[in-house]
């Protein structure tokens, strides 16, 4: 089936070559980073995790979102998702590859990565993160590929795949819970030390991931004439709405606890993010954009009349993705390190090298996504599963 990725029109190949060029440029930056060390990033002794880990956190959420298609389809027989589920699982594969990519580029000694396997450390959450992420990658590849292959051969889905599908449901929840545990178990960082971190992560994942999926599917509809179906998109939009409401609600819970309790350590990071602390406020603009985007996206998503209007839906989803990305991809990781253990503020901004290397990882993920979706669309077209 993979050979189907090699047959495409000019637009397809231009896109692939464009991605390869971006990967090439980013690789140059990465080689520079390998040569000189992580000094080329904006990270420091105080903010020791930055753009890379923040993107990793965001995309674990995007990967987990495939479960929002699998659950209704397999547990509740919602057949309308059949046209989208393979696309969603392949998007999860691409997202996990992006996550692994960001971890690798963030390491100081990437060639020693195997040490995590050679010296298993059950008391470290990173150990479990490695297991669940790679396991999820494997599950999704196996499930999506085998089901697609069966459809290609005009055969029913293989029976042995079903248990894996059922496994993928709690597994998807676990990948993002484990990632949240990375943060919420640390006594040192008060912004992260909250039980609701895992719940926030999951809520944010289940709105941002399907949002990205819908936007990608609408792009696919335009370029490949593959329509997943109006109802599927509308149901997924409903799920996104509920998840986003939960996400925003959880954030307000955090704000309440911090400010009603008036404990300085709890308030400090939120004050830094939204007002500025000790004269530093680099993220204040971003955080207010996040707040406004989140509110506007909910204003559009909640009333069915707006949500079912495709143009408005696209606007809402873009604002939602922006808001969740700022929340997880900028505010969360950097905010955890500010103020530092000595109550001083050391700010962080990614350097051009970090952005180029991030571009490389994104492009690799997009390339994987492109190839897998090309195969899916070609197979579905061949077996006549596309309405047009």
């Amino acid at each position: 089936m993979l050979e189907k990725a090699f047959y495409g029109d000019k637009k397809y190949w231009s896109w692939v070559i464009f991605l390869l060029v971006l990967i090439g440029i980013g690789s140059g930056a990465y080689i520079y980073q390998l040569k000189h060390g992580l000094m080329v990033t904006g990270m420091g002794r105080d903010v020791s995790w930055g753009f890379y880990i923040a993107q990793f956190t965001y995309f674990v959420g995007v990967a987990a979102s495939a479960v929002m298609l699998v659950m209704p389809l397999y547990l509740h027989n919602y057949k309308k998702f059949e046209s989208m589920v393979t696309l969603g699982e392949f998007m999860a594969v691409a997202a996990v590859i992006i996550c692994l990519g960001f971890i690798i580029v963030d390491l100081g000694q990437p060639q020693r990565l195997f040490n995590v396997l050679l010296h298993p450390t059950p008391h470290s959450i990173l150990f479990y993160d490695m297991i669940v992420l790679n396991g999820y990658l494997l599950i999704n590849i196996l499930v999506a590929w085998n089901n697609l292959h069966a459809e290609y051969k005009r055969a029913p889905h293989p029976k042995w795949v079903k248990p894996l599908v059922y496994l993928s449901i709690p597994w998807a929840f676990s990948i993002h819970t484990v990632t949240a545990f990375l943060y919420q178990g640390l006594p040192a960082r008060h912004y992260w030390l909250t039980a609701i971190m895992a719940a926030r992560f999951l809520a944010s994942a289940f709105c941002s991931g399907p949002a990205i999926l819908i936007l990608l599917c609408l792009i696919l509809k335009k370029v490949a004439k593959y329509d997943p179906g109006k109802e599927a998109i509308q149901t997924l939009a409903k799920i996104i709405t509920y998840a986003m409401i939960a996400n925003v609600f959880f954030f307000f819970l955090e704000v309440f606890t911090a400010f009603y309790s008036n404990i300085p350590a709890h308030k400090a990071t939120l004050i830094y993010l939204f007002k500025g602390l000790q004269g530093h406020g680099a993220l204040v603009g971003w955080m207010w954009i996040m707040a406004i985007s989140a509110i506007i996206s909910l204003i559009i998503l909640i009333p069915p009349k707006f949500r079912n209007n495709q143009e408005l839906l696209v606007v809402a989803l873009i604002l939602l993705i922006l808001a969740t990305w700022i929340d997880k991809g900028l505010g969360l990781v950097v905010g955890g390190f500010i103020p530092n253990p000595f109550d001083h503020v050391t700010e962080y901004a990614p350097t051009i090298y970090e952005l180029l290397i991030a571009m490389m990882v994104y492009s690799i993920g997009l390339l994987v996504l492109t190839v897998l979706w090309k195969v899916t669309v070609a197979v579905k077209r061949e077996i006549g599963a596309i309405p047009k």
Partner: protein
Amino acid sequence: MDNKRRNLLKAMAISAALGLTGIPVEAKASYLPEVGKYLKSKKEPRAKQWGMVIDTRKFKTKEDFERVIEACNRAHNIPEGIPNKKQEIKWIFEEDFLGAFPNQENPFLAERFENREVLVLCNHCEHPPCVRVCPTKATFKRPDGIVMMDFHRCIGCRYCMAACPYGSRSFNFRDPAPFVKHKNPDFPTRMRGVVEKCLFCYERLKLGEMPACVEASNGAIIFGDLMDPNSEIRKVLRENYTIRRKVELGTEPCVYYII
């Protein structure tokens, strides 16, 4: 598939599986040298939990601090003068009082602490969060209480830096060698991409010497076994009121401060 082909593939898979089981046994046997025997150092004082008492009253002048910090930096090839101050390396350093003890917020702080700094370093906690989170056991707690670092195993993920509540850890964002002013031939430097911190001078303890900072402090820093009720450090702790940094986090730090 053809039956004969399936049988052949089955036979190949089974023999490969059987063959592979032999490799780990073989590999282990040749890896460790069979000759020789390892001995502990008789000069090394035995302890169950090394600890430190820093008498802040004895650190009055800038020279007092610099002498101690310089001793550590010299002994351990700590790089100095890295252009990006955000990425500096420091094992033992000064912080203002409220920075070292944020939970001692005091609008009417005693005058003697208004402008005086406090020495801070890795606390070698009894329940270290950094050890809990390290995915490769590159940082681990020794039986004598020292929270040790294995620079050969560290993958540079910096999870320990996120977990440390005291800001004791530094990461080598770049190769430190050009910035090591005076190379001490008895101790290595580190390479870029690994995390480092104070190791309670394990290499000096091994030869029966006191840590570099303790020796340079002229009695302002006491070092000893916290679990030995007859040690000098326990006597000092009995006679003086001491505080520790961020005790509410449950890490049980082993560096005490006489205020």
